[in-house]
């Protein structure tokens, strides 16, 4: 599987104008790569995730291309995207706990979904049961209503459903946010197992919790205020980040065992800009400790080392 995103721009329509939530994203994902997508709330990561699979009002497609496995995804066309959904690209949404129809038995709903998509040949009841075993759900859930399941169980059911047709690319949107730490670990491990067994080829794991990504992701893409900041392997991002934002993000993570008296928690001073009328150029420059005059131009997302992309004028300077 391969994913190429070229200069994707997607805005939110509001009565006061367009919120420039995703403003020029260009990156690639390789086969078998689990890419984490990290950033603060409002940085555009969920927008990016949703744009790839369900781009509809209030989202508005502005420009850009998405190419999955060599075929261009018609992301702006809701109807034509149906061919790709669930089969080539799928999503485990942020609202997974509410994603199941409350008045339908889960098994019945699954059956109706498969039948309506005319995908009976591609999946069988045995396969469904094998998947349930994989996420450690009893086969009985198919006879239950969503209301009879706990939040965690519902989420795992959604994981099964979303991956039932073996999509090339799976987008997991904040799937650990509402869980306790132990369950988070279990879910994260399940995700990796999906990839390892070949059920999905690659993944985008969207989260604001960098520590989860450290556990499961091969690479991490850091976003800030609708722009891409840095993409590199997980090790590189954590150990030797180059973008000022990434550096501050990583260093603001609390370390286990270190006490407040020894090392005060440092946040990043300032707040994210409103994207209705964002600042020109690099959107981090108002909070950036090393910003200089070139930063009023948007820095391009360049590959400074093998597999390491950064969008920062300061870094280009030192590289050159």
């Amino acid at each position: 599987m391969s994913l190429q995103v070229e200069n994707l721009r997607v805005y939110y329509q509001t009565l006061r104008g367009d919120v420039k939530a995703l403003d020029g994203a260009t990156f690639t994902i390789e086969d078998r790569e689990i890419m984490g997508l990290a950033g603060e709330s409002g940085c555009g990561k969920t927008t990016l995730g949703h744009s790839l699979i369900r781009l509809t009002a209030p989202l508005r497609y502005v420009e850009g291309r998405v190419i999955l496995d060599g075929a261009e995804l018609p992301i702006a066309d809701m109807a034509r995207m149906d061919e790709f959904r669930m089969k080539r690209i799928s999503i485990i949404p942020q609202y997974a706990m509410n994603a199941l129809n409350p008045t339908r038995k889960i098994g019945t709903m699954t059956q109706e979904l498969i039948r309506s998509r005319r995908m009976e040949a591609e999946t069988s009841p045995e396969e469904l049961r094998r998947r349930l075993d994989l996420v450690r759900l009893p086969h009985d859930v198919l006879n239950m209503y969503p209301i009879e399941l706990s939040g965690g169980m519902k989420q795992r059911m959604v994981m099964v459903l979303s991956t039932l047709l073996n999509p090339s690319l799976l987008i997991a949107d904040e799937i650990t946010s509402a869980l306790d730490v132990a369950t988070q670990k279990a879910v994260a491990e399940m995700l990796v197992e999906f990839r390892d067994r070949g059920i999905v080829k690659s993944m985008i794991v969207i989260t604001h919790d960098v520590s989860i990504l450290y556990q499961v992701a091969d690479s991490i893409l850091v976003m800030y205020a609708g722009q891409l900041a840095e993409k590199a392997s997980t090790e590189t991002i954590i150990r030797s980040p180059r973008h000022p934002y990434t550096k501050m993000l990583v260093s603001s993570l609390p370390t286990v065992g270190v006490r407040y008296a020894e090392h005060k928690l440092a946040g990043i001073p300032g707040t994210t800009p409103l994207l209705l009328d964002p600042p020109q150029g690099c959107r981090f420059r108002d909070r950036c400790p090393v910003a200089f005059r070139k930063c009023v131009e948007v820095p391009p997302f360049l590959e400074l080392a093998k597999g390491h992309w950064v969008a920062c004028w300061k870094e280009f300077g030192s590289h050159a």
Partner: protein
Amino acid sequence: MRRYFGRKFLIYGLTFLLAVTIDWLIPRFMPGDPIANMLSRAALNADAAQVLYTYYTHAFRLDLPIWQQYLNFWNALFHGDLGISTYLFPTPVVRVLLRAVPYDIALLLPAILLSWLAGNRFGAFAARTKWLDNTVLPLGYILTATPYMWLGILLAWVLGIVLGLFPIAGAYSFDLSPHLSWRFLSDVVWHWFLPFASLFLVQFGGWAIGMRNMIIYELEADYSHYLEALGSPRRLVRNYAFRNALLPQLSGLALQLGVIVAGALVTEVVFSYPGIGYLLLSAIQNQDYFLVQGCFLFIIIGVLVANFAIDIVYVLVDPRTRKGMTGEKA
């Protein structure tokens, strides 16, 4: 589920108690004296009137102390004895009412069911496309804002008088008497149509609007978005939204019953249709104690039974009530 029905029974029980008490109280405060009224029509001389007055007062047990009258009322109720009508003397009230009930059922049952089903379908249609929405919505608002009696009057005038297509008074033609034949049945239907239509149309508007709003709400729900993200055809998403939107419409129906009964009452007046509503009005105008009581009681029982029926249907249709997870329902 036991809790659900437990609460319902408590409410129905209390309502019945309250209603019967109100029912019993009403005639005690009616202006005028029904026995004197009744006797005045018999045109007797003063002495005979006095004797009969005492006789009837005793027969109707109005000379007993209040609390005993109350208990007697309950007693009589359970024996199916609602007294004797003074307006239609000497027919027992129960028989008068039972004569009227079929006409009400014939009017209300189809009107409620059909308007609910059709209104919901139409409301769902309206939510599909913009141009449908722009036509159905204003129509729905106009219909639901129309007072029942005015629509009845309009239909009577346009279809009855001006176009002469339907009769506008009574349940059947005056020259016929009830008997089983095609001629009689078709005559009944012919008289039934206009009152039915006016009840149907007003309710239809209300349901259409309600359903349209509910469907839009359901289409914006997380499960709808998830289905879309999984590439479901529109048909499936709409189907699920429709089924889920029906549930609040069902409880809404239970809440509307009081309003619908009022509408039927007034429609019967417009068309002189001999249902319980029409009877109630005549009873009030003629100061017939017992008939008023009886009508009111029948109406209450009817509404409670209908409510209960809807509650049962609701439990069958919404799995959440069966699994005991809902606290508050209509």
